[in-house]
């Protein structure tokens, strides 16, 4: 039993306490138990109030059971599930005693909808309180009446925002929105609850079923007039399309549903919700997003079993360039003291400038108070020598990508730091094992590869050598998580994971350009190739990405890959030529595109005319399958331990579209035999070894397996 009912002083308490779990989930079983309790309550109108509480620490109800949603295969099943929940919550809403959700922690998804079905919501000052409807992240929307009740309760604009972004709010924001009626301290909660109930009974808390907040002025006009509402819906569609490029059906469907049920009575409104939900729940996008949710949760919570990470209070950073400066900002943002070292003040100034800019923008966008920006920025100090390094807990090296320089730096570091310090390198492709040879204690050396821009990209690759100790790994993993990043652990090898998989794709795009993919309506092959990938769902095309990263940087990594992995990574001539012409990408104003005024393709880069490739589908396959093939080799070489690491890496490190479920999940959906067959065909057509299917792929095909079983 996960629900119990008890009465105390004429107040009924429905207590959620799911067995064998740290959190409560609104499972079908739990809902049925709730249903039974509500049936017995129907006859107890003498109660002063019914309070729904959780017995879990910091959790009210964390949401529905995702497995149940994952299991929906027919729209009717989805709609039925939705209706079943709706009916029970309606029963709760229709009780004729005051009902109160006492929220002392996370109330998400179904948990939030349950609270919405209560007449009143009392939250605590607990900083863990998070209330929201994150369903869109799973490719669905709230279907226990959430789309019906929330916009009515807190107003159309805020209601839409919460449902469409899926972002939960904290207790203070919830109070401001009218999502909760009052906040109470955790200490002496019983007393505050009793006061709240007394106030309700004496009519001192607004009891309007919906619309707790009374807007005034222009917002009121917008929210209450049909025209205003039409405008709000229209704007929402616009901003959703801008953010999702139409690849994600859930938010659009949510808008369409709310646009209907906002004007319907409860029965018909909820029916609309249930039917739309059923249709969404069976989409491939939803299944893919659920898959991504599972694997990203898995890596977000990664830890090294049995080993306690060491605390990290102070970090030294070597090199104040784009990466070093970005890392310094990220660390200071996470309240870690930073000693930033470079070889001259101009470099240090650049690092400080980029960090200060991020803080200034955050203040401007009101994501941070001015004083917070000062306190955080103050955590960065600069130096030209190794003073202040002796008592650091970790050093992150982000100097130029040159083995000789890195060797020298690690030799110096090894002498400058204390014995407990972890020495991490942010190299994107150089051998960590080689670098570690220069130190007194290679067990303390590890790779910590951030992606640019550091504050935005959620992934870090943690690279271990054969000597890296488990304690070093555990501490670094914990450190990455503390910075809000999702870590994947990669064995030291040429190019690690993300760059290795990604660079093959970029290079393939270069080949397509050399072969002269017909530009069609795009006017230039560069744009045409980029468009193939953005149409697939990548946030930007391969050439735009290369311009962002810098052609010199990309070229350098390609050379390292070619040296380590062979000729399939030999940079196409176009890259070498363009780089030699000084077109380095966005930073130099010119790359594959020109960046003065409106972005246009660089007219000095001419596509080839071989006519080998004229087909968009084949081009897309070449770019994707090269990646899949390389990813298979990485699994074969056991560079990562699971396909999940590759999908997490490609989604969060390279922007591979989440709605496709990740690179290898996508491969599974295409079918391994199809991919192997196509690779074979491409190998024969182009006489190119790079399309030779990896042994791992052949093994999967022969054993009739998939990447994910």
């Amino acid at each position, binding site marked *: 039993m996960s629900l119990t009912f008890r009465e105390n002083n004429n107040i009924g308490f429905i207590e959620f306490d799911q067995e064998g779990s740290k959190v409560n989930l609104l499972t079908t079983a739990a809902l049925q138990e709730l249903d039974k309790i509500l049936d017995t309550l129907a006859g107890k109108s003498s109660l002063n109030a019914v309070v729904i509480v959780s017995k879990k620490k910091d959790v009210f109800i964390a949401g529905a059971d995702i497995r149940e949603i994952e299991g929906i295969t027919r729209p009717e099943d989805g709609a039925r599930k939705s209706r079943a929940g709706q009916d029970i919550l309606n029963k709760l809403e229709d009780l004729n005693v005051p009902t109160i959700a006492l929220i002392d922690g996370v109330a998400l998804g179904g948990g939030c909808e349950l609270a919405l079905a209560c007449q009143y919501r009392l939250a605590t000052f607990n900083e863990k309180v998070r209330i929201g409807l994150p369903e869109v992240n799973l490719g669905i929307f709230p279907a226990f009446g959430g789309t019906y009740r929330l916009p009515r309760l807190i107003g159309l604009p805020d209601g839409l925002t919460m449902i469409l972004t899926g972002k939960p709010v904290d207790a203070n924001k919830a109070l401001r929105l009218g999502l909760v009626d009052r906040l109470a301290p955790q200490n002496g909660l019983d007393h505050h609850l009793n006061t709240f109930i007394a106030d309700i009974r004496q009519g001192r808390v607004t009891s309007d079923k919906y619309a707790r907040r009374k807007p005034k002025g222009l917002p009121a006009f917008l929210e209450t007039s049909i025209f205003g509402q039409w405008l709000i819906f229209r704007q929402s569609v616009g901003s959703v399309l801008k953010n999702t490029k139409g690849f994600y059906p859930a938010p659009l469907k949510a808008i369409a549903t709310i646009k209907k049920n906002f004007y319907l009575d409860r029965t018909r409104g909820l029916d609309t919700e249930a039917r739309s939900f059923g249709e969404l729940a069976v989409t491939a996008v939803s299944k893919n997003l659920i898959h991504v949710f599972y694997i990203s949760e898995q890596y977000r919570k990664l830890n090294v079993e049995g080993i306690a990470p060491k605390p990290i209070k102070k970090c030294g950073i070597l090199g104040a360039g784009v990466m070093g400066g970005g890392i310094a900002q990220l660390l200071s943002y996470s309240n870690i003291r930073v000693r930033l070292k470079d070889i001259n*003040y101009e470099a240090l*100034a650049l690092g400080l400038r980029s960090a*200060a800019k991020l803080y200034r923008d955050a203040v401007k966008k009101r994501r941070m108070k001015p004083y917070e920006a000062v306190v955080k920025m*103050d955590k960065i*100090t600069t*130096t030209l020598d190794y003073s*202040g390094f002796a*008592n650091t807990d970790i050093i992150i090296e982000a100097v130029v990508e040159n083995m000789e320089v890195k060797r020298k730096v690690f030799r110096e570091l090894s002498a400058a730091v204390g014995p407990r310090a972890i020495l991490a390198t942010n190299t994107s492709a150089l051998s960590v094992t080689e670098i570690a040879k220069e130190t007194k204690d290679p067990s303390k050396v590890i790779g910590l590869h951030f992606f640019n821009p550091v504050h935005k990209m959620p992934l870090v690759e943690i690279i271990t050598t054969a000597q890296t100790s488990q304690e070093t790994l555990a501490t670094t993993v914990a450190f990455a998580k503390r910075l809000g990043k999702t870590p994947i652990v990669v064995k030291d090898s040429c190019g690690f994971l993300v760059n290795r998989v990604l660079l093959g794709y970029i290079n393939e795009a270069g080949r397509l350009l050399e072969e002269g993919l017909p530009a069609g309506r795009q006017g230039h092959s560069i744009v045409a190739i980029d468009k193939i990938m953005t149409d697939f769902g990548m946030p930007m095309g391969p050439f735009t990405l290369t311009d962002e990263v810098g052609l010199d940087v990309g070229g350098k990594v390609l050379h390292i890959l070619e040296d380590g992995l062979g000729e399939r990574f030999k940079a196409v001539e176009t890259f070498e030529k363009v780089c030699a012409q000084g077109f380095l990408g966005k930073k130099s104003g010119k790359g594959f595109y020109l960046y003065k005024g409106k972005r246009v393709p660089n007219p000095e880069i001419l596509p080839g005319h071989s006519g080998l490739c004229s087909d968009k589908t084949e081009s897309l396959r070449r770019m994707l399958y090269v990646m899949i093939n390389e990813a298979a080799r990485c699994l074969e070489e056991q560079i990562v331990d699971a396909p999940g690491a590759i999908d997490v890496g490609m989604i969060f490190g390279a922007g591979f579209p989440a709605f496709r479920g990740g690179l290898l999940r996508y491969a599974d959906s295409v079918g391994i035999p199809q991919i192997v067959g196509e690779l074979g065909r491409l190998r024969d057509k182009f006489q190119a070894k790079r399309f030779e299917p990896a042994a791992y792929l052949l093994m999967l095909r022969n054993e009739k397996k998939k990447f994910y079983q």
Partner: protein
Amino acid sequence: MHRVAIIDGIRTPFCKMGTEFRDLNAQELGRIATRELLERTGVDPRQIDEVIFGNVGQPADAANIARVIALLSGIPKTVPAYTVHRNCASGIEAAVQAAMKIQLGQGDCYIAGGTESMSNIPFYFSKELQDILTHLGRAKTLPQKLQTLIRLRPAYLKPRVGLEMGLTDPVCGLIMGSTAEVLAKEFGITREEQDAFALESHLRALRGQAILREEIVPIIPPPKYKLAIEHDNGPREGQTIEALQKLKPYFDRRSGTVTVGNSSQITDGAAALLITSEQKAKELNLKPLGFIKAYAFAGVEPHRMGIGPAHAIPRVLKKAGMRLKDIQAVEINEAFAAQVLACLKALESPAFEKESRYEGYCGAIDRNILNVNGGAIALGHPVGTTGARLILTMLKHMNRHNLNTGLVSLCVGGGQGAAVVLER
């Protein structure tokens, strides 16, 4: 009593008011010096018993600025902090507070320093305007509001300059420069003597620029974070006696001798010192720069405030059990050339020695051991900071030249003198 060791110190460059540091407030300057001191000494912040800072223009947005500095610098929140104000001797007062606490056994590890951002000393509303604004806030109806506003006169909008108010003695009514004029007249100090002294300060400061780097943490100042400021910007390259002589007297236009050229500069800067008991220094394996041997303060007439050092020096020597001849290096803060010269004359005068009952503790100070790397006329005088800066500069000088004794002294607005004897 425990012996008081000064382990190390660091200061920011000193920049003239309104120049490179105008966007760094006093707490930021103090934070930079304090944090760098922690970084360079490597001392565990948990070892620190208290943080004490001197500050004169105490900013409204950083009440108890020492506490603000301590927290921004990463000193644990469990470590208390307080701010001291003895006008121009605030920085020395902070160090003396630490010394006294160590001597009493109250604690054995302190950060003491001074900070001042004279660029950020605010302008004030006139009293009349303040009254009107207060009334306006309380007025409820529109007629009431209008009635209040109608009292407004253009003259009320004239701001009162905080810096000027701070530099004016409320008891004798003189601005600091005028007190220097009083001494110049009393001691017969000529314009030529003052200008020569000022020129020497600039020359010595320029010569000492490389040496002073030892005590300076370079700063890349916000909001632009463009250039690193590595040196004090007060010392003027190519300063000539002719240029100094051309300046008009600032405080007494007709018969005066004190000019902006022979007065200290108005400057931003901060300094921080790590002060421990000798025992604690041994425990932490820290090598002290030197020790505080004695300290003394003296009161004088407010309108003669610049004579303060002439009284504080004999007193501190007496406490230290030393004579002037035992002192190997001297720093007397150059608030005004006239005032330093007056002090030197007074100390040399047998009549002064006798009248003040300082027998045996007065005498001539060799100009070759006085302010050898320049003083506030060239380097600037961030009022709350200077005391700490003088101790730091002196200790570094003593270490460089292997000297055993040093004397630091300054005059204090309001009519005081402060002095500290340092030893190695």
